[in-house]
């Protein structure tokens, strides 16, 4: 076991090389969630999938990585070098080598090879045999070994289409914990019974829930639930999830066989799903003393759905209509009454979300939402700010002509007194118009 001067061990975090703008936010948020506050992020680098850290023990490594979507696995570090020969030297020269050998001497085990940016068709058995100096006496068990030892081979492609022939770097370690990437497959929209045009992809909705620190046994709310993508992600991480949407058609789904509730049943997580309400977020019915631990959403930006709230676009036209009666009963009290809605400004809606979060979240509770912007606008995107909320993350996902960002805020309470731009006109162009003009 590598014990460094301060009694900690060296580990390797092997991440995926996608969504790199979200990786650090996810790792930091999960470390904070599990109270692991001693990780040195100064060595973290977006351009590589490898991140070496020191941790107190394997349990910390397990807690930290078990939920991570953007991490493949975390390993206890045994050695690394540029060639296999040097790798074997590196492993045997570590001062923890003898102790490690003894610790896992009789455990069942297997060897694995993982690669980055390349592949190797060489004879893996021969390569494994070269590790015979480890002198493990336990049985090889491919199905359920006590220990998994992994060689990670890093390649450098010669050009975009020509892969590198030999690895340029090798790392050897003992697997401690894999990330939660299997859940991406489990929650893949292709396999989801109820979905729609506004459904949010599995990978980034799970990452969003991690950065928002959705916790088991707490309450998560999505005020623009749509087909329930974020509710699904929140339920996966054990929160009781509540959704609302002003558009009842979305949350009703396609009858009793395909709706948000049946999705939760499909995933075996129906106890995590409370309800979805047909409700205007700006005319909110959740009682004001209910603590909501996390708010996670993708507000309407007017692309697939326009921004609407309750009320009459032309109040004069509706004057007196509240007195209309049908069958001796006020029209607006009928079961099938459909209230009129009016357009609403995006800036106002975002201000409302921030204000609501400042009132409902506990101290240190998180608000996370997505916001799109056009890439070619020569003006800085103005991020909405609230005096009680610390803007913690601003993670950008780039598309061809537009991008969207996950904004994550932490409620610091009234003493925080941060900058605010509430009430200001922030957006200069309407994103929807630009989107449908193909950003020309």
């Amino acid at each position: 076991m590598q014990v460094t001067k301060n009694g900690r061990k060296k580990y390797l975090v092997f991440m995926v090389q996608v969504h790199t703008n979200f990786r650090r936010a996810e790792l930091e948020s999960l470390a904070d969630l599990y109270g692991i506050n001693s990780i040195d992020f100064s060595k973290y680098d977006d351009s590589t999938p490898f991140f070496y850290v020191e941790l107190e023990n394997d349990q910390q490594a397990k807690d930290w990585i078990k939920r991570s979507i953007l991490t493949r696995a975390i390993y206890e570090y045994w050695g690394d070098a540029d060639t296999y020969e040097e790798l074997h030297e590196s492993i045997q020269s570590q001062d923890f080598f003898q102790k490690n050998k003894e610790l896992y001497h009789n455990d069942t085990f297997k060897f694995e090879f993982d690669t980055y940016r390349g592949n190797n068709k060489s004879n893996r058995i021969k390569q494994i045999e070269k590790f015979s100096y480890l002198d493990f006496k336990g049985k090889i068990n491919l199905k359920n070994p006590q220990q998994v030892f992994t060689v990670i081979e890093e390649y450098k492609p010669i050009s975009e289409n020509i892969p590198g022939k030999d690895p340029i770097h090798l790392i050897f370690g003992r697997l401690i914990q894999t990330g939660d990437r299997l859940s991406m497959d489990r929650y893949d929209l292709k396999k989801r019974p109820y979905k729609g045009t506004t459904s949010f992809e599995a990978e980034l909705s799970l990452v969003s829930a991690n950065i928002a620190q959705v916790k088991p046994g707490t309450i998560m709310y999505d005020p623009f639930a749509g087909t329930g993508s974020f509710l699904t992600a929140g339920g996966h991480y054990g929160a009781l999830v509540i959704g609302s949407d002003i558009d009842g058609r979305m949350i009703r789904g396609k009858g009793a066989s395909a709706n948000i509730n049946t999705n939760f049943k499909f995933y075996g997580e129906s106890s995590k799903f409370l309800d979805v309400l047909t409700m205007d977020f700006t005319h909110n019915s959740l009682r004001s003393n209910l603590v909501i631990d996390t708010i996670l959403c993708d507000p309407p930006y007017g692309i697939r759905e326009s921004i609407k709230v309750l009320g009459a676009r032309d109040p004069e036209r509706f004057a007196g209509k509240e007195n209309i009666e049908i069958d001796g009963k006020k029209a607006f009290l009928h079961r099938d009454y459909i209230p009129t809605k009016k357009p609403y400004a995006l800036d106002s809606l975002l201000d409302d979300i921030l204000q609501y979060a400042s009132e409902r979240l506990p101290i240190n509770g998180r608000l996370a939402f997505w916001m799109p912007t056009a890439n070619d606008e020569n003006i800085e995107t103005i991020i909405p700010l609230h005096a009680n909320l610390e803007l913690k993350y601003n993670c950008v996902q780039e598309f061809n002509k537009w991008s969207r960002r996950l904004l994550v805020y932490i409620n610091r309470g009234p003493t925080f007194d941060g900058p605010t731009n509430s009430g200001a006109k922030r957006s200069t162009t309407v994103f929807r118009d630009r989107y449908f003009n193909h950003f020309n």
Partner: protein
Amino acid sequence: MKFLTTNFLKCSVKACDTSNDNFPLQYDGSKCQLVQDESIEFNPEFLLNIIERVDWNAVLSVASDLGNTALPPSKPVFPATADQLSEEDMTILRDLHTLLIQTSISEGEMKCRNCGHVYYIKNSIPNLLLPPHLA
């Protein structure tokens, strides 16, 4: 709409926020259809956390609206963690699971005690939208 949700819902009308009568809503027992979903699994640890958030007086009020007056007058007290739960605690938790999580209102209506506005539940989904003169 699950019974537990009735514990979170107030009247949408902003003017009612200054009144103490906007929560809980008053459920019309003669018009509410109740259904049980026994397939929702019982998770005591999860339920313990959620019960902390529950307003017991509102549970009593809504249960009484729906014809159940057999609940204890004050919120049951449980140990802090699930592994300390006694058998008796578990029995009570199971009952609460049946009431709060497995019981839902599939069709029905409820009213604000302050402004009198009526909201409907259709296909298990409550509709909390307001006409323009109340919005």
